[in-house]
């Protein structure tokens, strides 16, 4: 036996109380982990945005098109480094429920702007040469088990081909891999030119214009210059940093972060009261035992440390199980949420925050009972019987 055994035995002496406390903490941390992962998935686009990357969209709404000619005009502006363009394809695989985020892009300029993902040199060359080629994000390739050389049908729920069909067949030319593991790669890239030539509406319009600046400090200046250039035109623009663009996109659904944190904090506050009260009650029931320990020679500080350790152990037990449960839940639902929340993972950040909250919970719920145990009057406690 050692001190830890004593702490553990004290914690497990009332199995029902331990189970109920653990369950309450488990639920709180399950919520914390799962909602934290969801919040991070929403924020991923914002956090991983490049500092020097801007996005120009139609001022009316980002679903409205822009003329392709804008791209070359933007290239002439001072402070602009690289410019590319993209179009929404609205893809799915076999059935509409299997969403496949597909962009029609310019193969020559796309990776100049998006340099935070990499494609094997040979695969990239093959893609550029094959008009029916498609690049698959690593996450999709892993999820669907697709590999280079496969031919896949991709349907659009917006566009149709001249033959009336809305399904395009593509050859997988390569895999898009992230430099940062959290970078979203749950998308596919097809040739803009091939797409525009084969869909019935044709034309030379585009969805949005991603561009990079020579220096992040020039972002504001370049944004203003771009929007000024197209002011009073039939398609006025709105240019913002990629982070702002992503944030605005997410906030269309409301302040996700605030909602999630409110739920988590409410759960934590409730758990704090329940567990704190339970710990206090548990120590109150043991006053004569604590007095005996002190009589045997356990110092007040040692008693304090043991009660606090018991509280930490309880929080750790329920909390780590809760975080583990959240990890399993997230892992289980990830395949179903690929198209909505591609970056849904219980990352290190959430896990470390969870551990910090476990420590806080252990401290806050244990400090008062530990203090009471430390200050317990041995004579009074022994004479209470």
């Amino acid at each position, binding site marked *: *036996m*050692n*001190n830890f*055994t*004593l702490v553990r*035995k*004290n914690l*497990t*002496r009332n199995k029902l109380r331990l189970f109920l406390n653990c369950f309450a903490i488990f639920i709180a941390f399950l919520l914390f982990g799962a909602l934290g992962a969801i919040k991070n998935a929403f924020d991923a686009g914002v956090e991983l945005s490049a500092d020097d990357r801007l996005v120009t969209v139609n001022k009316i709404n980002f679903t409205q098109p822009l003329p392709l000619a804008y791209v070359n005009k933007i290239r002439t502006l001072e402070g602009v480094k690289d410019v590319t363009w993209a179009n929404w394809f609205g893809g799915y695989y076999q059935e509409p429920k299997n969403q496949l985020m597909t962009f029609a892009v310019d193969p020559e300029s796309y990776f100049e702007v998006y340099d935070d993902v990499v494609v094997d040199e040979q695969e990239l060359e093959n893609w550029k040469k094959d008009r029916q080629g498609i690049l698959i994000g690593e996450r999709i390739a892993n999820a669907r088990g697709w590999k280079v050389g496969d031919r896949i049908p991709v349907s659009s729920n917006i566009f149709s081909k001249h033959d009336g069909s809305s399904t395009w067949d593509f050859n997988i030319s390569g895999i898009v891999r992230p430099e940062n593991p959290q970078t979203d790669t749950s998308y596919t890239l097809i040739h803009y030119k091939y797409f525009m030539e084969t869909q019935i509406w044709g034309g030379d319009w585009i969805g949005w214009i991603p561009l990079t600046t020579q220096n992040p400090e020039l972002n504001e200046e370049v944004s203003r210059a771009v929007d000024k250039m197209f002011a009073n035109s039939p398609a006025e623009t709105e240019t913002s940093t990629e982070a702002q663009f992503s944030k605005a996109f997410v906030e269309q659904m409301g302040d996700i972060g605030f909602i999630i944190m409110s739920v988590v904090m409410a759960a934590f506050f409730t758990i704090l009261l329940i567990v704190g009260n339970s710990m206090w009650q548990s120590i109150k029931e043991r006053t*004569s*035992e604590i007095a*005996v*320990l*002190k*009589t*045997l*020679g*356990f*110092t*007040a*500080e040692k008693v304090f440390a043991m009660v606090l350790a018991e509280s930490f152990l309880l929080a750790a037990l329920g909390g780590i199980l809760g975080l583990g449960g959240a990890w399993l839940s997230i892992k289980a639902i990830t395949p179903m949420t690929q198209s909505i929340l591609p970056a849904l993972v219980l990352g290190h950040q959430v896990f470390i925050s969870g551990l910090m909250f476990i420590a806080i919970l252990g401290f806050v719920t244990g400090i008062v009972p530990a203090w009471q145990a430390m200050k317990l009057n*041995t*004579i009074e406690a*022994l*004479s209470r*019987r």
Partner: protein
Amino acid sequence: MSNELLFDLKNIEKRFVRGRESISIFDGLNITIKKGTFVSIMGPSGSGKTTLLNMLGGVDRPTSGEILFEGQAIQNLGEGELAKWRARHVGFIFQFYNLMPMLNAEKNVELPLLLKNLSKAQRNKSVETALKLVGLSDRARHLPKELSGGQQQRVAIARAIVSDPDLLLCDEPTGDLDRTTATEILETLQLLNKEFGKTIVMVTHDPVAASFANVSLHLDKGQFIEQQSSEAVA
């Protein structure tokens, strides 16, 4: 019994304040206890028996006066130092055993050894010896609720002696036991006194229990009014 003094209490005063009233328990109490004595202290409720026992054990402090243990004044030691002193020198035996309900007999006995720097093997050996001495080797893995009152008190005795203290302080150790079991417990205490030289101070209401001691003191209103032996007490 040795002629060396274990305790020398000089001019002990102990007062409690209850509301606006100051209650005096001891007013100039003097007592010496020699090493290896088995002292019983009897007296009516409220006479100060347990208070005296607590002061001897370093759990309580006198309002004034001096408590010398082997010549060292202990009444002014800090809380932490007193706790360490108790762990090194004193074993407590209570009326209601006060065992930890979630620990089995051997783990209860092992408790005081957690305060010493001993290896697991050394601790196990000490626990085994202590349980053997009280005749409970075969109940080592039993929880307190699985033991009779007498067995629980024997576990408590094993816990008190496991760290080999000089002094055993017993507060009504047989108060909750039937006569036969009480006699067994008292015989065990007598054995510890005679064979192992432990100094024992026992508070009791029971004259039969007191007769097992080699010195019986009667405490009333904070003063010793009777003593049956002058060998141990001056």
